[in-house]
């Protein structure tokens, strides 16, 4: 029996069946590049119960100038800038490769206007390979993303436009860089969101050593890793009180115990992000540890 099978019963996430409650955070795992590095062993032991792809925008993007990374105590900061092939490049090149993964595919999309988000949602609505869509309204590196995700009225107006375009689940990824993420979550549910996911990275900055100039090419970046875990737990708890739709909890998860905390706070599924950078198989380990914590008798019984 594989580690994946040991990780507990399948989870229903707004109609998407997850083999385990552990998925990846968008932008923290490139399954196509990882298959080049690790071969088909990646597919045989896929580390997540569903795969969330990196943000797709309508037009291709190069991303921010380097340097893009800064290491922090118990974490890191990134200023990547959403590089991607654009909608047509994704459909032509990435989607056929991602279909070969053994788990459901969730596509993360971001637009610079409601019309762009509608174009993306409309395009993926027609693709049976795509199980659900995650709306990136929270990337702190792109100004418009911050605006749409930081304000309940903006979220309502966005969902009014895109909700009628598809029957697929729409997951709204909330930004922590908002005065009241729970109010945004509540507005998202009222306007037809199927689930919410949180937290995205927290905006931060570092100076190049010995200077008064930002180190990161994008000026500011997003803080992630265990440094933000307590923030994630507080925000998931607050959002749980504000909505009835499922929550995907994430932020600094490194262990089954960390995942269990987010589940106890009200999450239905938990995403692993930065920890996958340190170990590409971290999702497997977190899922196995979680299974051992939640049903020790069953795990022993299978041995």
């Amino acid at each position, binding site marked *: 029996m594989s580690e994946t099978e040991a990780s507990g019963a399948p989870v229903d996430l707004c109609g998407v069946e997850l083999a385990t409650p552990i998925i990846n955070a968008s932008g923290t795992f490139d399954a196509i590049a990882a298959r080049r590095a690790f071969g088909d062993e990646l597919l045989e032991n896929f580390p997540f119960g569903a795969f969330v792809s990196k943000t797709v925008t309508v037009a291709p993007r190069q991303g921010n100038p380097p340097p*893009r990374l800064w290491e922090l105590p118990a974490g890191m900061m990134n200023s990547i800038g959403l590089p991607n092939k654009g909608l047509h490049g994704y459909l032509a090149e990435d989607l056929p490769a991602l279909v070969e993964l053994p788990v459901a595919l969730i596509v993360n999309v971001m637009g610079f206007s409601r019309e762009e988000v509608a174009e993306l949602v409309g395009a993926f609505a027609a693709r049976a390979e795509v199980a659900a869509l995650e709306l990136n309204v929270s990337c702190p590196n792109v100004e418009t993303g911050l605006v749409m995700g930081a304000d309940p009225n903006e979220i309502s107006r966005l969902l009014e436009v895109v909700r009628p375009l598809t029957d697929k689940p729409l997951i709204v990824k909330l930004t922590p860089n908002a005065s009241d993420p729970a109010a945004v979550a509540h507005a998202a549910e009222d306007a037809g969101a199927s689930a919410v996911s949180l937290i995205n990275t927290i905006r931060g900055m570092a100076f190049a050593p010995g200077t008064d100039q930002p180190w990161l090419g994008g000026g500011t970046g997003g803080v992630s890793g265990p440094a933000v875990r307590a923030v994630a737990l507080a925000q998931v708890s607050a959002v749980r009180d504000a909505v009835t739709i499922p929550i995907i909890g994430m932020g600094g998860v490194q262990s089954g115990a960390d995942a269990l905390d987010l589940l106890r706070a009200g999450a239905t599924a938990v995403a692993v992000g930065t920890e996958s950078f*340190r170990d590409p198989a971290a999702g497997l380990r977190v899922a196995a540890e979680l299974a051992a914590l939640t049903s020790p008798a069953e795990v022993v019984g299978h041995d």
Partner: protein
Amino acid sequence: MTSTRAHRVTAPFGARVVDITRRSQHGPYIELECVDLEGPRPHAGQFYMLMASSRWGGGTGERPFLGRAFSVLRATSPPGSEQGVALQFLVEDVGPGTNRLCELELGDGLSLVGPLGNGFAPPRDGRRALLVGGGVGIAPLAIWRDELGEAATVLLGFRDADHAAGAQLLANPRVATDDGSSGHHGLVTELLDDELDDHSHAEVYACGPPAMLKAVRLQCAVREIPAQLALESGMACGFGACFGCVVQTRSGYVRLCVDGPVLDGADLGPEAFTGIGAGH
């Protein structure tokens, strides 16, 4: 692009912990050896992400947190074992990650992911291999020199005689030091100029600090000599996940971890060598 003629082997999936089996010192450089029972023999120029398996964190600035990328120095058959591969890495203490790695003793655990990335390709058209290394960047040239044999010419540059102790890791090198305390007084690129003037039917393989690689690229470009440059860039993951290690090429940004770390000089301009500080 270099990736179209990739020289790589795939890695086992996931981080694995191995024991340090040998540790030696060459001037300021620490050579660490471990036996990787599960992994394949890497291609010259490929790299691994390394962390100490304990106390990774809590150093200067409460770091390190992320793994650190190291090209393999040598890969040999493990003594007394038919299985696995003995891997050697060269570490210089220049930051919280390398500082912790330099503390490792025999029997301590090393967490590694790899081999990753694309290594060196053989010389084209019967060209003579010219290996140019600077500082700790000599590491991938050692395993490549082992494969190429006597036909390769090795030029190494160091800050001073203390650092030039690293030259003993490669056979028959010509050495330059910035302060003249060992070998040629000057830059390794001056030795390269001499070689290229005498033997233009060459292919250059280089690894070292960005300023050295920038100069080598230009030296080769003006003479229309092919160059394979092993770059370094700050990296969070090493397998294409984070998009943090990009380098500017003539076709846009590429991820050094999956499209490199060995890049073809013809794909690069001078701008490739800025903004790629590794922060070890």
